[in-house]
């Protein structure tokens, strides 16, 4: 496990350097599309789980969730996804595909009450390619333009939680936001004339803190947990480097500037989960991001407060042969509705989604593999806007081991 973990860490920079592959027209604005902060099981229940505990996976929704880890255990999480995306607008449609490394996480519990975790996941993503041909009237001269955007902001989190009185868990997370976005415009005139590229590379960095709380209340064979998180407002510093160059890679002009006029909003979330006799889990979450207080204006586009409502259900089959090591799967389903933060022409870019999936323990329950299907619809075709439909397949793994044990024979 440790060797495998080390290999993954060594390969990690490769994935960080690779472009985050994403496709969404609304990612043109600002920091791009805000993506769900879901690892492991959270992605199987539409990104919910504020009140759930990190038992066999890292629940990055709440720093206080680490109470659920087994003592001296280590969980290593990793997930990938594939998306089939359809853009529709004014009778036209276009199809896009992308695949990505979703996240990577590591959680451990050195002592009975103290948990630590590290996660790396996207915070926002940009991805689009739009083409345009312009013909000058009465002239016959035309030129093509291709607008592309890629990259995004990642969030690296270092989480720590401590359990008090066996039921109350408090957590804190140190978050580092970093990443780069590249926006380019390629102008290709007709008749083999020189083409030009205008490129902006935007490098961002910011730090923040997240606070979490979780309380578990036993109810006979069942349990009720409630949880909450809070993240303060933070300035996002970024540096932009602009360059204009021609098709011979001769630089026409280049300059850079530093700004800090993007503010990431204050966020809080609240949720509850009802565990029914270790078979069923029902969860419900509400998340809120106060964009309107940031007074942020993305190139003339206003922002709305972001709200998300999520419900989820988990069901674990009972083993008919509990004495045998036969893996018992669990099934998950979730649905969410989100009021997005971008407002275009008076239209909020809202979304609804649902997910279904399953989890299978392997290797005597030390590892888990999860497969989920997700459907998401967001945007609108009103006022010439775009509706985006995404069908996705996600695959995730949780690898578990025991550290901090002095073995007689290793």
């Amino acid at each position, binding site marked *: 496990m440790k060797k495998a973990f080390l290999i993954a860490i060594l390969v990690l920079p490769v994935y960080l350097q690779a472009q985050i592959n994403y496709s969404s027209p609304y990612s043109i604005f600002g920091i791009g599309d805000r993506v769900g902060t879901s690892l492991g099981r959270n992605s199987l229940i539409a990104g919910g789980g504020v009140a759930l505990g990190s038992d066999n996976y890292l629940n990055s929704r709440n720093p206080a969730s680490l109470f659920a880890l087994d003592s001296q255990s280590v969980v290593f999480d990793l997930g990938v996804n594939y998306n089939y995306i359809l853009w529709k607008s004014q009778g036209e449609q276009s199809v896009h*595909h992308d*695949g990505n490394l979703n996240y990577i996480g590591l959680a451990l519990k050195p002592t009975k009450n103290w948990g630590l975790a590290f996660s790396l996941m996207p915070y926002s993503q940009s991805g*689009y390619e739009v083409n345009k041909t312009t013909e000058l009237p009465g002239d016959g001269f035309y030129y093509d333009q291709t607008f592309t955007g890629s990259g995004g902001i990642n969030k690296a989190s270092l989480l720590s939680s401590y359990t008090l009185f066996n039921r109350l868990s408090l957590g804190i997370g140190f978050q580092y936001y970093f990443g780069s976005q590249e926006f380019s415009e390629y102008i290709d005139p007709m008749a083999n004339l020189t083409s030009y590229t*205008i490129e902006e590379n935007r490098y961002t960095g910011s730090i923040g803190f997240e606070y979490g709380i979780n309380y578990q209340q036993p109810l006979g064979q069942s349990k009720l947990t409630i949880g909450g998180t809070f993240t303060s407002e933070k300035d996002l510093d970024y540096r932009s480097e602009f360059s204009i160059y021609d098709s011979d890679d001769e630089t026409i002009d280049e300059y850079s500037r530093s700004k800090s006029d993007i503010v990431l909003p204050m966020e809080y979330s609240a949720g509850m989960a009802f565990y029914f006799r270790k078979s069923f889990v029902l969860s419900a979450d509400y998340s809120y991001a106060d964009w309107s207080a940031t007074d942020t204006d993305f190139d003339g586009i206003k922002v709305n407060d972001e709200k998300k409502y999520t419900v989820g259900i988990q069901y674990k089959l009972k083993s008919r042969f509990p004495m045998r090591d036969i893996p018992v799967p669990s099934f998950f389903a979730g649905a969410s509705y989100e009021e997005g933060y971008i407002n*275009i022409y008076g239209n909020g870019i809202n979304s609804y989604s649902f997910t279904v999936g399953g989890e299978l323990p392997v290797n005597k329950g030390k590892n888990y593999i999860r497969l989920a299907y997700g459907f998401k619809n967001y945007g609108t075709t009103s006022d010439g806007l775009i509706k985006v439909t995404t069908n996705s397949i996600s695959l995730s793994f949780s690898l578990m081991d025991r550290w901090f044990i002095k073995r007689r024979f290793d």
Partner: protein
Amino acid sequence: MKSKGWAYRWLIWLNLVLIAFSCEDGDPDNTIGLSLLDSDTYVEMIDTLQVVTSTVQLDSTISSGDDFGYVGFVNDSISGKVFAETFFKVEWPTSSNIHDDEWVDSMVLEVNYSGFLFGDTAEVIELFVHEVAFTYELPDDGYFYSHNKISYFPDVLGSVEYDPQDSDSIIEIRMTDEFTQRVFEILEERDYTYDETTSFQDYLEGLVITTSKDEDAIIGLDFSSSSGLVLYISEPDEYSSQREISIGYSDSDEQFYHLEMDFSECPFSMLETSNEFLADESNGLCLIQPAAGIFTKVELPSLENLLMISEYGTVLSAELIIKPEIGMQSHSDFPEGLVLYEGDSDNYPVDVISGSDGYDITSYFTQDVYYNENTYYGFDVSDYIIDELSDNYVDPTRSILISIDNGEDYPTLQNLLLKGGSDPDDKPLLKIHYLTF
């Protein structure tokens, strides 16, 4: 340990999956999302820059060194009266070896017709050969000019009536018997004295091919593959055999043509008194006649205004459009191509303007066969304009000279009228596609 090995294999497999999954495949023809984009980049067509044209005339042009000459006379409706004659020298043959019993039958001056004709194509032109009266040497700068003229004796040494429509391009001018005998005796004396130090010019300074001013055509002469003076030598034997002795032309540096221009009775009479005048001063017209040192000059006084369009911008393409005058010329008179030179402050063509690919910028001709409204010569001057603007400074002394591209090293005597002036329908245009970032 089994659990460690199991995780190890999972992660290696997963890494391979991740590499395969890190991809993105979009729709290359996608136009959805344009309404969301806000780009400040655009291309606009600008054709309002001022283009000032004028006719300029050099004092003289180089007329030697190309194995080429002009001869004839034309009273042209555009250029006025043009008279041309060509001076040349001949040199010793490689061997003459004249025997005592040989005698000269006849002698011709052979020169090739180059194919160039200016004036009446149906004209039969009478050519005369005279002897140059004075010794002339190559000037210090190594060139003769079209204004250079050497006096010659009035006696006609040979003449021919030549029809340029004749399929035979070789012009044979029968020389007089007296001159023939004289040349024969020169060769005899050389053979007798074996003196290698004398030159043929010690006996014959030079010759000129000329014509009268009653003609109506000027033709081009090609000396490069011509034989020169050809003597036909005979032997008084029973077989009456004949041999030839060729006295070839000397170095092309000592061949030159002389031009006399009289603009007094043509639309460009101002050329008699001025070396430069605007198209607006000559009824909106400009003249090109390269051999006479006449070019159309193009200036772009407001070109620097492009530098003020935007902070970030560049010229994508630039086309110079200029129309030929139709009424005074027929389509058959239009040259196939024009070429651009960079002119200095004295209106001298310094160098051919070439593109970034190193090739000369030559014109393309568009002909409106039905209405003649859209007949024009166009030049792709994109590289020239971009270069002019590259250092954010436009040199006001730079100008463009338009000449006729005849594909040869020597200038053509053909002329062309171009429309200049400020008439909105006919004025020259500089059409620029400008990209603003």
